[in-house]
């Protein structure tokens, strides 16, 4: 057998076996990983919505949103928004008032930003008293006309938040995702 044929056979066999092993493994781990993601998502929905409400999920145009009602009246909508951060996809659960004018709460579902910098959007270990200060700034934040951010200063307007020092791009990405996708959600839910 000449050498070229040997190279082709060995590499082909290796990659085929590798692919097969991974495919089998994936069929075992995928349901578990998905179950965990769902669990995170449900926990996030429960966390962002107000207490003691009836939650109903609706699917419309491939978009799932959760309606919270209290005594027959809609008190909040919750839905998932996502987009590119600094180096990973940011997935955030957001809850807004029924007229889409104010954010009630937010929660980061998944992010793989730079450890120690971008990850502060979810948990800032350098702020001992309030590690979730960044996302908590969105509580009660007005959405219109647009949400903006400031650097190294306290927010002065009711549509403004403070960006994380060293993670401006991750901070700006969250603001941008919220600005764009809350409007999209409003259009879909409002129909």
């Amino acid at each position: 057998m000449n050498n070229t044929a040997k190279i082709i056979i060995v590499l082909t066999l290796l990659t085929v076996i590798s692919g097969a092993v991974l495919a089998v493994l994936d069929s075992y781990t995928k349901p578990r990983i998905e179950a965990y993601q769902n669990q995170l998502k449900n926990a996030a929905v429960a966390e962002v919505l107000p207490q003691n409400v009836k939650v109903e999920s609706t699917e419309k145009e491939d978009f799932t949103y959760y309606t919270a009602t209290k005594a027959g009246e809609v008190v909040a909508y919750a839905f998932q928004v996502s987009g590119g951060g600094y180096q990973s996809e940011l997935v955030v659960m957001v809850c807004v008032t029924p007229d889409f004018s104010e954010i009630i709460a937010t929660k980061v579902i998944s992010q793989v930003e730079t450890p120690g910098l971008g990850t502060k959007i979810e948990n800032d270990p350098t702020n001992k008293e309030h590690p979730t200060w960044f996302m908590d700034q969105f509580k009660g934040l007005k959405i219109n006309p647009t949400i903006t951010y400031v650097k190294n200063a306290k927010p002065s307007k009711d549509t403004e938040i403070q960006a994380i020092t060293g993670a401006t791009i991750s901070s700006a990405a969250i603001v941008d995702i919220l600005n764009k996708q809350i409007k999209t959600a409003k259009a879909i839910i409002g129909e």
Partner: protein
Amino acid sequence: MKEKTAIQELVKGIWDENPVLVQLLGLCPTLAVTSSAENGLAMGLAATFVLLCSSFLVSMFRKMIPGQVRIAAYIVIIATFVTIADRFLAAFVPDISKSLGPFIPLIIVNCMILGRQEAFASKNGIGRSLLDAMGMGLGFTFTLLVLSSIREILGAGTWFGMRIMWESFAEWGVMSQAPGAFITLGCLIAGANWINARRKA
């Protein structure tokens, strides 16, 4: 060179040829994930798993893999085991998987693992390769555990999440950041060299 005994083959990775402190290999995960002892240990064990499995296969097929494509073949083997480790962690210990983030998939480019295939497993029998991989893996895990323990204790006042420093201890924030990793690693390497120099003298 004198043939090493089986025990020497295993023990050399822990100190004399320690992958991090002596060979300075695999420094990217060493510096990046060692902000907490839990992460350091998980990274060490994941890398050890990949190293053991890859060394086993590379050594077993060392006579069948043509020389020109050996690196490509090693990478496929290593990548397969890294993916197995990554999916496994994501499915069974999602919290650790989350905090290690992209560094588990990045084990693929860990020079320690590729280095052992090229320098050892491709030239030695299965038994010796497994001993070598075990020793290197233990050395890597041990170093990461020491490094991450120092950083977590000084940087956060905790060890494996438990508070162990006294109440009024002011955490050295820098230790849980990137500079803390470089400073601690530098001190460890200096310490290892100092001890080795004294042993030789």
